[in-house]
């Protein structure tokens, strides 16, 4: 292929072409250049070293025939777009780990993972036409490893955390731990313990009407009201999507009903979900208390849940207590 001559710019000191060639050859990234038909026109030292294929073995041949492991259909299309649109293209290790599979690039510190690569496809335009495309291959294995370590650390943190990300109240895992502890303590010191279970009425409708962001605000609103209307010694947790559980140590069901009603009323007041989006939501509440015959924590939660269900059945926006005598719920 006859390459167009590079015009020298008059008056400027010029790096001799020979030195530019050395730069391209020795640079610490991979650079190869292909013609529209897939013929390899240039192959630098980085690629020679990492693929153990010399320029003599690669240049002049077809890229896809020489490297059968390359994703041919995808790569052909990618290059075709660059030739046609005369614009850059890119790939990232985050979506495509590598273009050329290169292993053992770090014999000392590297593990068994192949090199991770970011690639840039650069159209070489002369006289309005793309004469060739250069592919620049950058080793980003360090970034990949940092990211992996970061992801693992974050996962561990999340598992250990006690809090719900959206509302800041405790999460379900913590609740279940604390419930066990509180039951034991209540039993040992012969104290009362009540449980509130409450969720947002018609939550799906809120989401569908206003979107998930407003739905999130509604959940936050309930959590905020729970924390502010209940006592400091009470324990509030987000149990599910729009569902909460509160533990009231030292409180009998009668007192818990009053607290629940205060909460219900506070939530029902209209509030600003987002700027210029006023919202009005209600909650249904189920209340139960620890009894000598309460077999396990699970039972307490099941009873509160049953009472919550009764609130729903009775029309929502209300508080219902679990009645152990009838093994069902009354207001």
């Amino acid at each position, binding site marked *: 292929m006859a390459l167009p001559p590079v015009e020298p710019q008059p008056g400027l000191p010029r790096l001799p072409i020979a030195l530019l060639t050395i730069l391209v050859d020795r640079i610490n990234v991979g650079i190869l250049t292909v013609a529209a038909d897939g013929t390899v026109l240039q192959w630098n030292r980085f690629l020679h070293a990492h693929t153990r294929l010399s320029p003599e073995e690669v240049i002049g041949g077809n890229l896809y025939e020489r490297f059968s492991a390359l994703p041919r259909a995808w790569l052909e*299309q990618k290059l075709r777009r660059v030739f046609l649109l005369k614009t850059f293209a890119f790939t*990232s290790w985050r*979506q495509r780990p590598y273009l050329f599979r290169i292993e053992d690039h770090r014999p000392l510190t590297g593990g068994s993972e192949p090199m991770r690569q970011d690639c840039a496809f650069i159209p070489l335009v002369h006289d309005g036409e793309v004469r060739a495309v250069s592919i620049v291959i950058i080793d980003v294995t360090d970034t990949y490893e940092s990211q992996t370590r970061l992801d693992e650390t974050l996962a561990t943190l999340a598992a250990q955390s006690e809090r719900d990300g959206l509302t800041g109240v405790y999460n379900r895992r913590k609740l279940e731990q604390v419930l066990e502890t509180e039951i034991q303590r209540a039993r040992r010191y012969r104290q009362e313990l009540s449980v509130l279970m409450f969720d947002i009425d018609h939550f799906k409708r809120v989401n569908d009407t206003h979107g998930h*962001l407003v739905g999130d605000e509604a959940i936050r609103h309930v959590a905020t009201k729970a924390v502010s209307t209940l006592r400091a010694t009470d324990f509030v947790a987000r149990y599910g999507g729009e569902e909460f559980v509160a533990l009231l140590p030292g409180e009998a069901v009668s007192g818990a009903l009053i607290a629940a009603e205060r909460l219900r009323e506070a939530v029902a007041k209209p509030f600003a979900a987002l700027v210029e989006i006023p919202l009005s939501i209600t909650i249904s509440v189920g209340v139960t208390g620890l009894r000598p015959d309460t077999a396990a924590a699970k039972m307490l939660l099941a009873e509160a849940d049953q009472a919550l269900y009764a609130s729903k059945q009775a029309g929502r926006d209300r508080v219902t207590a679990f009645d152990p005598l009838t093994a069902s719920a009354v207001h």
Partner: protein
Amino acid sequence: MTTPILSPEKLDALQELVNIGMGTAGAALAEALGGFVGLAVPGIDLTNRLNVAALFDVGSWAEDELEAVHQPFFGAFMGESMIVFDGRVHAHLANLPGYAVAPGAELSSAEQQEVLLDLANVVIGACVNGIAEPLQEIVSFAAPARFGSRSEIRTFLSRDAAAWHQGLIVNVDFKLEARSFLSRVLVFLPEHSLQRIDAALTRLLDGLAAG
């Protein structure tokens, strides 16, 4: 608002240039994605309004699943571009004939992200090159990157843009076969770049008017 650097006449010319660039990009994407792709530019705006969210006016979109990609460019003029897609883009990309690894197969999540970045790269490239090429200027690009999450996009859209930048907003109607979704491209150009574009447009228009 400070005097816009580009006059309405120049903006009109710019819109035509971008439209032509998009036409070529649409044809190339059509070949790649295996179906009709329409990229139309109903409007172009210059603004230095401080509220980026107002610039994009994404309130009416399927905001739950906004997707956004940003990409810097440099050369004869420089700046950064951002493209925002409405949420339906992923549903549309999920089963594109031209991109699927195996015929009939659905794209994996990584493949979808790759397609999205590629799409953004092509549209932004068409926009910026569409302006640069007819003006005989050369521009290079850095890699596109996705805004990681909905909250990142919101945070970015709600902060103030620097007062001395003027931004070019290009509305792009994206049609993929029978499906269509919206996108908006913001080409953020510092003053000296806009002035350079203005000068190049003057040369172009004067050249056409003469003779």
